[in-house]
């Protein structure tokens, strides 16, 4: 891929970046709305989805707090959340920003975005659950852009109690 980096963005690149902003917002809203059934639809069949600590990521350690390799595992995660997982009711609220297009080659691009996640438990004020950065590979081949890879690298040293809803 060509690295976009600090060079001047082309018109095409600016358009893709706008597309990525829409994609990121749509993705976040899907989760905030707890429409988990729609979540796997943001991914390609060969999805590589991970929620991983900065600690593991920077040391090149493979472990994730949560990982789904392939759409089947995305669907399984949703199914389990709806059928077996026991958890206190809560609302999740995303803010996503600082979307960057890092490389663009043909119909594939490498992109990133910052996220902040706020969690509101059933009888408390909201708190900051997580901040971090999405590391994405997005396919632009179809009529809607789809994630081939979405790694959610969180800055937290520790996860606060539980991570239930995907990031």
């Amino acid at each position, binding site marked *: 891929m060509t690295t976009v980096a600090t060079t001047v963005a082309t018109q095409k690149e600016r358009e893709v970046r706008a597309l990525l902003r829409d994609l990121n917002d749509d993705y976040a809203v899907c989760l905030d709305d707890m429409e988990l059934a729609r979540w796997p639809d943001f991914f390609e069949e060969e999805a590589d989805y991970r*929620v991983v*600590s900065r*600690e*593991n990521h920077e*040391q090149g*350690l*493979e*472990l*994730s*707090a*949560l*990982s789904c*390799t*392939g759409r*089947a*595992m995305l*669907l*399984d*995660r949703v*199914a*389990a959340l709806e*059928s*077996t*997982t*026991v*958890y*206190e009711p809560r609302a999740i609220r995303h803010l996503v920003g600082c979307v960057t297009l890092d490389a663009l080659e043909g119909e594939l691009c490498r992109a990133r975005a910052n996220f902040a996640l706020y969690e509101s438990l059933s009888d408390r004020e909201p708190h900051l659950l997580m901040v971090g950065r999405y590391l994405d590979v997005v396919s632009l081949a179809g009529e809607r852009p789809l994630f081939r890879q979405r790694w959610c690298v969180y800055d937290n*040293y*520790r*996860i*606060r*109690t*539980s*991570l*239930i809803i995907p990031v």
Partner: protein
Amino acid sequence: MTPAAQSSAAPRAWPEEAARVPAWIYSDPALFERELEVFHHGATWSYVGLECEIPEPGSYKRSWVGRRPVILVRDKDGEINVLENRCAHRGTMVCWQNRGQAKDLTCPYHHWNYDLKGNLQGLPFLRGALGKGGMPRDFDKSAHGLRRLRVERRGGTVWASYSEEAPSLEAFIGPEMLACIDRVFPANRRLRLIGYNRQHLPCNWKLYFENSRDPYHAGLLHSFFVTFGLLRTDTPFRAVPTEGGRHGIMASTYSPETASQQNEVTQQLTSWRPDFRIQDMELVKPVDEFGDSSMINLSVFPSVFFQQHGNCLAVRQILPKSQSETELSWTHYGFENDDPAMQARRLKQANLVGPAGYVGIDDSEVLAQLQPSAEKLPEALQVVEMGGRDTGAHETMVSETLIRSFYAFYRASMGL
């Protein structure tokens, strides 16, 4: 927010009734401090890390013994030292990085310099500058090193103790538990570090211990386990307190053939979801790598659990942070000659445990619902009489013997 916890000057009395635990032990800050002194900083051994985390001379990582910060460092002789992370001068943390490589340790504040065994090697202006200042002539460098703990290793695990009175690590762990630990750290295989999970639980550390020594809940709370037969109440199970209740062994049996059978026992499993299916079944189809169909969860008090859920191998360090806060620090490992399929399998099955684990979530969520009720109702009693009121080894999941034996040991140690 923890409500102002009562910390009675006069210690409260343990209830008379058998098989009862009073809720006030989970919220009293003075009791918490005493527990740390008696257990974690006392005549015990604490797990602090794996050898493979600090592979080279000069490799170090930070860890904890109880609530005290320590540095685990391999010196140039290949020895592992565990040093308190507190400068002997004015007390600054010497090491500010969670891990790294070092030739020596220099405190940032005044650059006192220590070797990797913790000895004070030098300090700036020991003899002053231009004839003025400097340390007193009788200043003895050898008396001002970093505090160094006793260290023992076994099968790639590293342990430390503050106590000269503590028995050897082997004696402390005891033969029955040692055998179980050795099983998941086989002598002929080198460990491969897979990564960490770190989790902050809003509960007292003993509530976590109870949870992880409680097979009764496993088959009920954890629908996911139950539904896929990873844990079955009707297959052979051992709940074995060792060393007078200090430690505890839980060993279950997994058989792919019977994993989804229904019978009179499973009918009592209100959490069985017979029509729940997943698509990627590899997650719940472990390979029997130790050849005994066993899955284990070993409680080595006060610092650690060793767990093997299918092919997911992990060490879980328990770090008490306050009377109402506990950190879990999970180190997942495999073996150097794992083939790619096994590497992938371990990663996939890691989705079962930890802060986002299919069964891990259930536990952290329940514990978050336990602490507030313990704090708001400190005079309430927990009832732990499933499986009887004794503290012996039981061969069933429907028993709280490991909790009862834990408190027998706890009360004896704490004089409660």
